[in-house]
């Protein structure tokens, strides 16, 4: 990537712990100015190690980190740490190394505190802050540095849902106002998606996939990645390519059930056993509106709502599939377990995964 301000090449980081030797390997990873990369992965995948290495806090055993950034590279830790003193002092002390005049520093401190909605806490002793306030302080402190590269390690940890919501909006605004290259590490996919335009998936110390956000969400390269990025519906079947003149091939699940697969997706893939991956939000229940290809009848099993989204599970061809509806709208108001519905999907929303 040409506008990369921080790049990792052929990186190997080894850490020895009580549970053995952990090895992180990243062949190539770039952080570009004005872009937000979400690093997704389960606990222990090496996400924090990756961030620390990118920040220069851990020495790789092999490979290199190329810094072309003009400004600071800073990392906000998973467990935010405040220094003794007031909230304002905590931000000010971070600016001490930048050789700014006093007034400029004060203005930056005020701006950063306001950005993260903690201006009212400026005089408070930082060691008396709540978890959420402390996290905001840590973010404000890093933000005040006007970093060229901003690395965030689990910025939504131990916040209640309302706190996560408002912090993700503040963070989004803060990022939008800069041209920083941002990497955010999280196991919370939804939070990561609120911020990012690129996704890297880390599994057991290996970069399993990276790319544009929509690309990774729609076309995960493996089942573990699919699980991680929320491609919940994975149906096994036999791939049958389109016969002369047909627009779509199909994944044949059984005699009555088949899922349309676009011809270009079939092309280059062997016939035989595949998994059809369909994101829940792309699976439609009870259509009639002509959107997508009907794939047959299903029976509703559970309907649960968090007030915003409704999660509906249905049984189709003996398998449980999942779909999301918006609460309080249309079908979501009337659907109940035991109801019979028709499922449909657009062929372009069907992705093939090797089983």
């Amino acid at each position, binding site marked *: 990537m040409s506008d990369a301000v921080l790049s990792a090449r052929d990186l190997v980081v080894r850490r020895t712990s009580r549970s053995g030797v952990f090895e992180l390997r990243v062949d190539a990873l770039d952080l570009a100015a004005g872009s937000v990369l979400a690093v997704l992965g389960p606990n222990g995948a090496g996400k924090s190690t990756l961030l*620390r290495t990118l*920040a220069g*806090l851990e020495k790789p055993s092999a490979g290199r980190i190329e810094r072309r950034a003009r400004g*600071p*590279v*800073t*990392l906000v*830790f998973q*467990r935010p*740490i405040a*220094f*003794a*003193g007031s909230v304002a002092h905590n931000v000010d*002390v*971070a600016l*001490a*190394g*930048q050789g700014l005049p006093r007034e400029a520093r004060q203005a930056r401190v005020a701006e950063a505190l306001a950005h993260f909605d903690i201006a009212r806490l400026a005089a408070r*002793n930082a060691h008396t802050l709540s978890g959420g306030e402390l996290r905001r302080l840590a973010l404000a*402190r*890093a933000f005040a*540095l006007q970093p060229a590269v901003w690395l965030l390690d689990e910025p939504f940890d131990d916040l209640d849902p309302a706190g996560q919501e408002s912090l993700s909006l503040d963070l989004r605004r803060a990022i939008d106002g800069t041209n920083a290259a941002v990497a955010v590490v999280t196991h919370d996919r939804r939070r990561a998606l609120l911020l990012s335009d690129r996704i890297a998936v880390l599994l057991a110390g290996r970069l399993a996939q990276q790319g544009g956000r929509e690309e990774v969400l729609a076309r995960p390269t493996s089942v573990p990645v699919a699980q991680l990025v929320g491609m919940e519906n994975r149906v096994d079947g036999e791939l049958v390519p389109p016969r002369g003149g047909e627009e779509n091939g199909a994944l044949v699940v059984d005699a009555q059930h088949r899922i349309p697969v676009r011809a270009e997706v079939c092309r280059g893939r062997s016939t035989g056993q595949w998994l059809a991956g369909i994101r829940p939000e792309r699976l439609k229940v009870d259509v009639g509106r002509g959107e997508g290809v009907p794939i047959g009848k299903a029976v509703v099993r559970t309907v649960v709502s968090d007030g915003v989204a409704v999660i509906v599970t249905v049984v189709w061809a003996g398998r449980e599939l999942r779909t999301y509806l918006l609460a309080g709208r249309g079908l979501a108001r009337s659907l109940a377990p035991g109801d019979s519905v028709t499922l449909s999907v657009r062929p372009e929303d069907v992705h093939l995964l090797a089983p």
Partner: protein
Amino acid sequence: MTELSLPLVLAVTARTLAVCGTALAIALLAGLPIGIWLGRQRFRGRVLGVSLVNSGMGAPPVVIGLLVSMLFWRSGPLGFLEWMYSPRAMVIAQVVIALPLVIGITLAAVGALDEDWELQARTLGIPRGRRLWLLLREIRLGVLAAVIAALGAILSEVGAVLAVGGNLEGETRVLTTAILMYTQMGQFELALALAAVLLGLTLVVAGALTVVQQGGRA
């Protein structure tokens, strides 16, 4: 029989403060960096160092007096300095008593910090000198505890200063050795008067430091 005179009490008190103050200053100057270093670095042999410090914290002063005496004895390795029975030898003995306390309490305070504390300061680009200042500020309650413990130990200690100082009038007589001497002579009035001064001193010092310590917690 020695008369209890104000100049005498003042002189003994002043000498006590001078010896203890010097010893404390040296112990802090040496002990704080060592404590910070031991508390932060992970290296082979660290556990040995820490256990050495821990046992030093409880070392009997009279044994330290014996060892320092052997060091400065005329035929000892440092005998040529002719420091035996001088305030310098007393300062050395008290530094040996205070140093493990300062190191031990400092390293405990540093150890109680988040293990990423240093990295956090570094990733914010805070310069080295400023980081050290921030660290001292962070562990200031521990540092004050170290001062209180060290000063309390050397102010009230008698075995080591008697062994290396010899309780020479006008030269190495300090409050504790004077109290001991007058007690043995049966001059309880004098002993009591000096004891009152010593007690007052420890109370004032501990009280003042406690006020500072608790104030810093607000």
